[in-house]
């Protein structure tokens, strides 16, 4: 093995086969898939897996929403062929995954009252992050923004971790009416973590008053740093969303 400072996450890429333990529709167009298999390469929240699907060439990147000793949970929003195929997976079926991808959130940024801001399916990786923050003894405030009531997921799961969970919906059909960013001003926090559609994160960047971390998406060729398909310009040079990302620190981002 060579010394390679590009592998900043320091995790190892693994390819292995997983079994679908369950697949449930948990909100409008959103599925929760629990897989069993080797999770040894998953080391931090915000990392993702890259999934091979029959008949599709490229793998599909999906965040790890949760994991335990021998299972991992994915939350999937159906938007095209690949996510449709995932939604149709049945208990007992097999999936080929690359794991150990991405840097993951850096929890070592010592914060007493972190704020988590999720938008839509972007709430997925925040769940595992929230869990680990709670395990570490901090109770983060969580703001989860959705378009409408039908799209809300994992409200109870987040609430079972921390009392401070605020749901917003654009049309007011659930939780507070408005955007996730609308409620930030009233919250006390000294650091933040966010994941959601880029327009939302851009709004977050304007609304927040502290440093924090953002989880980005990009179309990927490989997902493990080989193709330069997912490059992004940052203040500290070009970074690969799949490798030096998907989590970038606020100070690094060129909006």
């Amino acid at each position, binding site marked *: *093995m*060579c*010394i*390679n400072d*590009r*592998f900043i996450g320091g995790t*190892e*890429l693994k*390819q292995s086969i997983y079994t679908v333990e369950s697949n449930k529709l948990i909100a409008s167009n959103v599925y929760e898939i629990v897989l069993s298999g080797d999770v040894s390469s998953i080391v931090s929240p915000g990392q993702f897996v890259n999934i*091979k699907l029959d008949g*599709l*060439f*490229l*793998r599909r990147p999906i965040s790890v929403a949760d994991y335990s000793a021998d299972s991992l949970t994915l939350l999937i929003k159906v938007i095209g062929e690949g996510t449709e195929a995932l939604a149709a997976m049945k208990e007992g079926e097999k999936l080929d995954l*690359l794991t150990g991808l991405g840097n993951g959130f850096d929890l070592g940024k010592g914060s007493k009252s972190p704020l988590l801001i999720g938008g839509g399916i972007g709430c997925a990786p925040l769940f595992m992050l929230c869990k680990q923050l709670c395990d570490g003894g901090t109770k983060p405030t969580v703001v989860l923004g959705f378009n409408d009531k039908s799209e809300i997921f994992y409200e109870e799961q987040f609430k079972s971790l921390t009392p401070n969970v605020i749901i917003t919906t654009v049309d007011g059909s659930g939780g507070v009416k408005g955007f996730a960013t609308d409620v930030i001003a009233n919250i006390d926090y000294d650091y933040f973590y966010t994941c959601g559609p880029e327009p939302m994160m851009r709004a977050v960047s304007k609304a927040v008053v502290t440093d924090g971390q953002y989880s980005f998406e*990009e*179309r*990927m*060729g*490989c997902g*493990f*740093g*080989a*193709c*330069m*398909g*997912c*490059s*992004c*310009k940052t203040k500290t040079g*070009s970074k690969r969303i799949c490798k030096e990302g998907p989590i970038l620190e606020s100070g690094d981002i060129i909006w």
Partner: protein
Amino acid sequence: MVNTKVNLCGIEIDNPVIPASGTFGFGYEFAEIYDINILGTFSFKGTTKQERFGNPTPRIAECTAGMINSIGLQNPGIDAVIKEELPKLKSCFHKPVMANVSGFSLEEYAYVCAALDKEPQIGWIEVNISCPNVTKGGMDFGTSEEAAASVTKAVKKATTKPVIIKLSPNVTNIASIASACEAAGADGISLINTLLGMRIDLRTKKPVIANKMGGFSGRAIFPVALRMVYQVKKAVKIPIVGMGGISSARDVIEMMLAGACAVQIGAENLINPFACKEIIESLPDEMNKWGIKDISEIVGGAH
């Protein structure tokens, strides 16, 4: 015991399997997941005189049995490659490596080749005159006999290493361009680079790729690549490195029967990071299956 060794422009390699430029970084990234010394060699990311960020994203699109890329030659520039990438590579790869070079003028091509000429680990220089993802130069050099020959001459003057010219498939007559390169002094030909392709996103009703078009590769293009290697084999005597859509040891054999003396694997590395390892490991069995004792004996066997 079968023999998988082949001779590529005077350098013997353990097997004909070479990860293609742009899909294997500078090699050491893959050294984390397997011992890359099992490879025949590999072709590193297309290197230019200046550092390049490349094209805007999205740079990747999904296709049936393939993909489109529009990286646009992102690389740290020749100086950083020599100062940073090659020393890292040296610590994990102990064989000659193939340097993949691009440029926007004859001077740039020559400059980069001259710089690489001094690097002992460089075994071959693969000159990309066919990248469809850059606007000036690049592709144009690969679409006419004269331009291809002029690049060949310029780089031959700049280096003593074997020069392999990498051709574009987006041409009417690939054989005549290959012949022009041979006549201009090329030591080998590699082909094919990506086919120019495009996808449109039905949600936005606009091209998926920010740059609109990009390079199409992967399994889907294999029959076109095979045909071009066959045509070029008829036209030139210098060794051919065949690529385009190879995804198995079976495909390696088919490509060599068409005329390739070594092959490269591109897009397949991206969807299966262990592709080259698996192909190398299964090659002896596959050779046995088809009654092949020595892989170099089948080169051009279909003619």
